[in-house]
């Protein structure tokens, strides 16, 4: 039994890695879940026992090799175990989005042909039963949460625990078969099948092999030096490739502990209790956290507010230098030495604070002696009187003081005090948000990836982090830029195929293994960092052949709190122009503070001082765009502020708040025309749909403004 499940030396499957972990560090925590208000913990050895019992239960039910097992539920250890147990039996787990409607589920269940469906709770079981008359091949439905299930017909319905018991009872009969199946697994066996969310057309099943998942996980663990002492919080949907890589791939390879929150609502509390060291969140999440901090800071007392403002301002310039955790190559336990060092640092921080106060008092005394009448003025002047420390040391100590007073408590409140590596991906993150977290000493980085690549395409190495790039190619990944500017990659993580869809496979992946991402980007000269500018299909050429990437400029504009939406025009035109939507909350707040009276959105949007502010923003964006030799053509020459908010009810946006460029261009053709014919104002009437479906119209005269265009940094450079 010593080498059960691990007949292969190279550990080429998740079950093999599980066996290794259970053998090498069986008593370390593998899974935690908060239940009944207490964190329940399973060690690797316990987890292995549970998973094996479950796998034997599956065998007893007749699970065959190569079959698909659908798993539907929120992040809970039992669901992860069901996935690994399915792999042990030679089957392929297919996690589904648990918030999907029954209709969507029916398609996926039918497409993968799963006979076994593992459900989280009654809600999911109900959905599966609902679609069962259309998806005939479903034979066994298993559920994890017993609640409300008593009255159901249990001929084809099983409780996971009962299945486990059955597995344990028949272990003498089933164990040899299970070990045989585990030993059969190779690099080329399918590890998991994940369905893309299907925003365009039907979802596609992305088949990822053991090689894809495990090689990627191994490379990325090495990249960030992830060890077995990491803590992660598994809260992202299980059907998303990221969660599979983080919570199964990397967790198995590195052997770290996966923590599952009690319920989706308690996620923030659980985050704080666990204090993960490795964390992933979409930009929106970081945005929300920051907004909450800011709102609560507004309500705080003057002292706290002042401290917060002072130290956050200070951290902007120094956080990157003094705040980051050491980029440790190896994870190790908090030794006595390290604790002493921290104690020393805190003591120095407090000491420095006292020293500063004393010094200021002394300085004040001397200043008052010399300049009794103008003391206040001199006292305010910068530069220490008793110059005991050189500037970097002063900054260091200042930062440490800030750590004690502001940064530390703030990170603790956010649940991010122990973060070593945090990633954000999915869309562009605002530079201010990004820098806020980094200045706190949180090692927040960006990565770029997709399901077909087993997540990682590029990521930012420690010490080379910026808000406008997505980093360098991940280890083992080759990236090239196509003719049209589209990004292609080839890596060990590149997916095998789309399940039962050879046509799509062929159009995405060429015979040499290069996969098209559908995004346009370029490598920055000098640093070798990849920058993603837009979806490839939105990127066009301007009349003179320069690259036109509207989303890139729009994102830059939208990072200003005053600007809610922006639509940039310029494809096959000489110059770029833009529509801008102001953000009523931000601008309204500003107007209130500056005594600007307004009666309506329209009036505020047309106010000359608002236009001035927006113009300043546009010109700032132009300057930053001009720094980019490839995109310098996208500077905005003329713009107008729209008199109404772009709205999904009017068809101007999708329900997920993405602008529909073509519809807007058509609907506001008169305004676009005015942007290009040089007129300074235009009268327009727009039809609007109210929420109850009635229609009305808005009349307005809009002012069109010219924005200053910056000189491109390097002239004559044209996109390849």
């Amino acid at each position: 039994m010593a080498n059960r499940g691990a007949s292969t030396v190279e550990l080429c499957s998740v079950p093999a890695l599980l066996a290794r972990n259970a053998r090498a560090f069986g008593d370390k925590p593998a899974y935690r879940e908060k239940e009944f208000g207490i964190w329940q913990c399973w060690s690797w050895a316990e987890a292995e026992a549970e998973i094996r019992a479950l796998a034997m239960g599956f065998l007893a039910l007749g699970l065959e090799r190569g079959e698909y097992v659908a798993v539907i539920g929120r992040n809970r250890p039992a669901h992860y175990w069901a996935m690994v147990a399915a792999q042990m039996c030679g089957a392929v787990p297919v996690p589904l989005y648990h918030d999907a409607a029954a209709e969507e589920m029916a398609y996926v269940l039918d497409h993968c042909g799963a006979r076994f469906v593992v459900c989280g709770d009654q809600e999911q079981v109900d959905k599966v039963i609902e679609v069962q008359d259309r998806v005939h091949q479903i034979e066994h439905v298993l559920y994890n949460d017993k609640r409300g299930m008593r009255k159901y017909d249990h001929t084809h319905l099983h409780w996971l625990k009962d299945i486990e018991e059955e597995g344990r009872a028949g272990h003498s009969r089933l164990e040899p078969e299970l070990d045989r199946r585990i030993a059969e697994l190779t690099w080329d066996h399918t590890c998991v099948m994940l369905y893309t969310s299907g925003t365009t057309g039907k979802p596609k099943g992305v088949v990822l092999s053991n090689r894809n998942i495990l090689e990627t996980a191994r490379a990325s663990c090495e990249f960030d030096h992830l060890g077995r002492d990491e803590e992660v919080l598994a809260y992202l949907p299980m059907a998303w490739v990221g969660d599979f890589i983080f919570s199964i791939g990397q967790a198995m390879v590195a052997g770290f502990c996966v923590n599952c929150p009690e319920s989706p609502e308690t996620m923030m509390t659980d985050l704080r209790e666990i204090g993960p060291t490795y964390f992933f969140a979409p930009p929106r999440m970081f945005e929300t956290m920051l907004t909450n901090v800011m709102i609560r800071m507004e309500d705080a007392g003057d002292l706290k507010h002042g401290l917060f403002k002072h130290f956050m301002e200070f951290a902007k310039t120094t956080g990157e230098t003094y705040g980051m955790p050491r980029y440790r190559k190896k994870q190790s336990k908090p030794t006595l030495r390290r604790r002493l060092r921290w104690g020393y640092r805190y003591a120095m921080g407090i000491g420095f604070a006292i020293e500063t106060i004393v010094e200021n008092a002394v300085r004040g005394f001397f200043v008052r002696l010399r300049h009794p009448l103008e003391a206040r003025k001199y006292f305010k002047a910068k530069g220490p009187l008793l110059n005991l420390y050189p500037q970097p040391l002063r900054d260091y100590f200042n930062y440490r003081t800030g750590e004690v007073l502001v940064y530390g408590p703030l990170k603790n409140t956010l649940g991010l005090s122990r973060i070593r590596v945090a990633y954000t991906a999915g869309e562009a993150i605002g530079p201010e948000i990004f820098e806020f977290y980094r200045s706190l000493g949180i090692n927040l980085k960006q990565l770029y990836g997709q399901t077909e690549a087993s997540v990682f395409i590029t990521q930012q190495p420690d010490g080379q982090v910026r808000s406008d790039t997505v980093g360098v190619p991940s280890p083992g990944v080759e990236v090239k830029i196509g003719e049209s500017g589209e990004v292609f990659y080839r890596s060990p993580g590149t997916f095998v195929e789309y399940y039962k869809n050879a046509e799509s496979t062929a159009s995405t992946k060429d015979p040499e293994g290069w996969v098209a991402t559908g995004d346009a980007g370029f490598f920055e000269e000098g640093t070798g960092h990849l920058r993603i500018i837009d979806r490839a299909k939105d990127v066009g050429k301007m009349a003179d052949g320069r690259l036109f990437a509207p989303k890139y400029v729009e994102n830059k504009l939208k990072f200003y709190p005053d600007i809610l939406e922006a639509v940039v025009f310029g494809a096959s035109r000489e110059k770029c122009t833009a529509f801008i939507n102001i953000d009523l909350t931000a601008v309204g707040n500003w107007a209130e503070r500056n005594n600007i009276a307004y009666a309506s959105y329209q009036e505020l949007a047309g106010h000359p001082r608002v236009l001035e502010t927006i113009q300043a923003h546009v010109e700032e964006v132009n300057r930053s765009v001009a720094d980019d030799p490839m995109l310098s053509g996208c500077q905005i020459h003329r713009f107008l502020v729209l008199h109404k908010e772009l709205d999904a009810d009017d068809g101007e946006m999708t329900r997920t708040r993405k602008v529909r460029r073509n519809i807007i261009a058509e609907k506001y053709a008169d305004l676009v025309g005015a942007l290009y014919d040089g007129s300074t104002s235009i009268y327009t009437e727009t039809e609007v749909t109210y929420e109850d479906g009635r229609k009305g119209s808005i009349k307005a005269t809009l002012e069109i403004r010219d924005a200053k265009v910056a000189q491109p940094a390097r002239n004559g450079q044209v996109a390849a």
Partner: protein
Amino acid sequence: MNMVSYEPFVTEDGRTIGDAVMELRNITLRFGGVVAIKDISFDIREGEIRAIIGPNGAGKSSMLNVISGFYTPSEGEVWFEGRKRPQMRPYQVARQGIARTFQNIALFSGMSTLDNIMTGRITRMKSSLAAQALWWGKAEREESEHREAVEKIIDFLEIQHIRKTPVGRLPYGLQKRVELGRALAAEPRLLLLDEPMAGMNVEEKEDMSRFILDVNDEFGTTIVLIEHDMGVVMDLSDRVVVMDYGKKIGDGPPDEVRRNQDVIDAYLGVSHD
């Protein structure tokens, strides 16, 4: 046994309703010259959801207070679990296994959800006040047992996210849920709900209905509820007592009650179909 034994009957959704847990025999309740309840008799059977309905001032809440032992009936007898109940103080009734929620929320608003539900366990605590204050010996062990029971209820009612929030800060619907939790914490044999859905929106009502059904189903608790929302009453309850001006004017399964002419006249209005 002085109790009438019934043939167990099976409800529409397949639950078995057993013997009578409580019998009210010829209850009359007077406050001075006002007669709140006039000679009412009915029974509550093991495992059923029994609704009491009636127009405002019909004496529903008084009836509930008689059941809970808060009022002692002027005439008539209350039989609980086969024995005639003597005059009791409310806490003695609570120890017998009757718990209730109130029409107007009666929680400790400064205390957390967890603590509020914990108070529901007080009747079950055996260690002395001194031991509990010192949190020593038996009290310590006992507390973790009770905490476990409370956590199960928190999990059951899906209120994990407000475990540590003071209930005063919670929205109305959640407070009602916490109150239900506190009543459940006493592990009652008979649960009395006084207008559990009053003032709730449709979604909160749906949630509450689901919880009431789940309590009945999972714990087998017998439930008596007073409610104004006819849809809720007709869907939830197994049998309905209809009161008007302190008198019982109907008793039976929802469908039967709905057809009863007296009930239609008194309460539901004239049927339009």
